[in-house]
C-alpha cells in the first residue's frame, strides 16, 4: 500500500473541507473494498478520510415514505435491525447474503452503493425498490444513480448520507452467488407496489439497472410463465471468467423467475 495522510473528521462539514483541500482524496467507510484495492495498489489516494465518526451517517428510522438507512450501517446491522426485518424484510435477507460474516460486520450500505461494483447486491435493491440516495446537497433517485462500471452520479466531493427506501407490498431477491466471493453473478430484485412492478438487476451489465421490458410484461400479467415470452438481449452484458454475456442474459430470466416465485409464495 502506498503512503497517504489519514483524517478522521468528527463532523460532515469538516470531512468535506478536508476533501476539498486535498490532492487526490478518498472517503473511507467500512473499507472492505477500498483497503484491499489500496493494498493491491489499484488505488493510491493522497488522503484517506475516515467517515466512522460522522453520526449524521448512522441510524435507521421510519420516514414519511419508507425506511431511511444511514450510509455507515453495516450489512449485518441491515440484516438484523428490527425495523428492517419488520418493514423491509427483502433488504434484510439481501444483506445477509453479502460476502461473509466478517465482511458483513464491517462493510456498509453506503460504501457498497458508492462503489457501484457491477456484481454488488445493494444496487439491485436501490433500483428494484425505487430508493433514493441522499447526499449533503441533494437527493438522487436510484434510477439515476448508477452510471457505469464503478461510476455513480455522485460528484467527486460528494458522499452518501443515507438511503431512503419506499416500502413495497411485497418483494423478493434472488441471486446466483459466486461460490468464492459471494458476489452476485446475477441478482434480481422484484417488488410490487400496489400492482406497479419494479425489477432491479445487478451483475449482468456494467452497473445495476431496471429490467423495463420484464416490468411491462409483469404489470400486464403477474405470473412466472409470462417471463418465457420476454427476450433478454445480452448486448452490453459482462463477459468474464465467471459467465458469458449470453449466460448472464439467461440468468436474468431465471433469477427474476425465482424472485417472482418467492414473492408470489409459489
Amino acid at each position, binding site marked *: 500500500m502506498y503512503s497517504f495522510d*489519514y483524517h478522521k473528521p468528527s463532523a460532515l462539514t469538516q470531512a468535506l473541507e478536508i476533501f476539498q483541500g486535498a490532492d487526490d482524496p478518498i472517503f473511507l467507510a467500512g473499507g472492505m473494498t477500498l483497503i484491499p484495492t489500496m493494498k493491491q495498489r489499484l488505488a493510491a489516494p493522497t488522503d484517506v478520510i475516515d467517515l466512522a465518526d460522522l453520526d449524521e451517517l448512522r441510524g435507521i428510522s421510519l420516514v414519511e415514505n419508507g425506511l431511511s438507512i444511514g450510509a455507515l450501517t453495516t450489512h449485518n446491522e441491515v440484516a438484523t435491525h428490527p425495523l428492517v426485518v419488520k418493514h423491509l424484510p427483502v433488504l434484510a435477507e439481501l444483506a445477509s447474503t453479502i460476502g461473509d460474516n466478517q465482511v458483513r460486520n464491517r462493510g456498509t450500505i453506503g460504501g457498497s452503493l458508492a462503489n457501484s461494483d457491477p456484481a454488488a447486491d445493494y444496487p439491485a435493491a436501490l433500483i428494484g425498490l425505487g430508493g433514493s440516495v441522499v447526499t449533503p446537497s441533494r437527493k438522487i433517485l436510484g434510477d439515476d444513480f448508477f452510471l457505469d462500471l464503478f461510476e455513480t452520479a455522485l460528484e467527486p466531493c460528494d458522499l452518501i448520507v443515507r438511503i431512503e427506501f419506499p416500502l413495497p407490498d411485497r418483494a423478493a431477491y434472488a441471486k446466483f452467488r459466486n461460490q468464492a466471493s459471494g458476489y452476485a453473478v446475477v441478482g434480481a430484485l422484484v417488488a410490487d407496489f400496489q400492482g406497479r412492478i419494479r425489477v432491479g438487476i445487478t451483475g449482468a451489465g456494467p452497473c445495476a439497472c431496471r429490467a423495463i421490458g420484464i416490468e411491462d410484461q409483469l404489470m400486464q400479467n403477474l405470473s412466472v410463465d409470462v417471463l418465457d415470452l420476454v427476450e433478454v438481449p445480452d448486448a452490453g452484458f459482462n463477459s468474464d471468467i465467471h459467465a458469458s454475456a449470453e449466460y448472464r442474459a439467461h440468468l436474468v430470466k431465471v433469477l427474476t423467475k425465482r424472485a417472482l416465485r418467492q414473492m408470489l409464495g409459489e
Partner: protein
Amino acid sequence: MKIEIDVNNKVHEVVIEPNALLVNVLRDQLQLTGAHVGCDTSQCGACTVHLDGRAVKSCAILALQVAQSKVVTIEGIGDAENLHPMQSAFREHHALQCGFCTPGMIMQAIDLVTHEDNLDREKIRQGLEGNLCRCTGYHNIVSAIESVADKA
C-alpha cells in the same frame, strides 16, 4: 503517528504509519502473533479478531481505524491453563490439524454462537464461509462449534 489502541483490555501506545494494517501492528509491534496472515487478500479469515465484539478480518483494516475501539485477539480469550470454552471444544473434537487457521476459526466461531440462534451444522458451515482450512478439516471444526452452540 502515535496512537493508543486497546487490545485484550490493555491500552498500548504504538507509533505507526497511516498505511499500517491492524494485523501487522498486532503481530509486529505487540507480538500478538495469534492472528495469522494467510492470504492477505481478506479471503482466508486466518487474521480474524474481534473489534467491539464482532469478528473482522484484521488484514483489511487500518490500525488507525481502531484507535477508539476494543480489539480482542485469540490471546485475549483464554490461556493454556484456562481455555475459552470454544478452545476446549476445538481440543476435544480434534478440530485442528496444522492449526494455522485455528485462531481465526475460533474467533469467528465465537461471533457465530454469540449472535446466531438455532445453529445447526448447515448454518455453522455457512457461518464459516469467510474462513478457509487448508487441511480441509471442516468436519470436526463444525462439530466443535456445534457442541458449544448446544450448551449455549
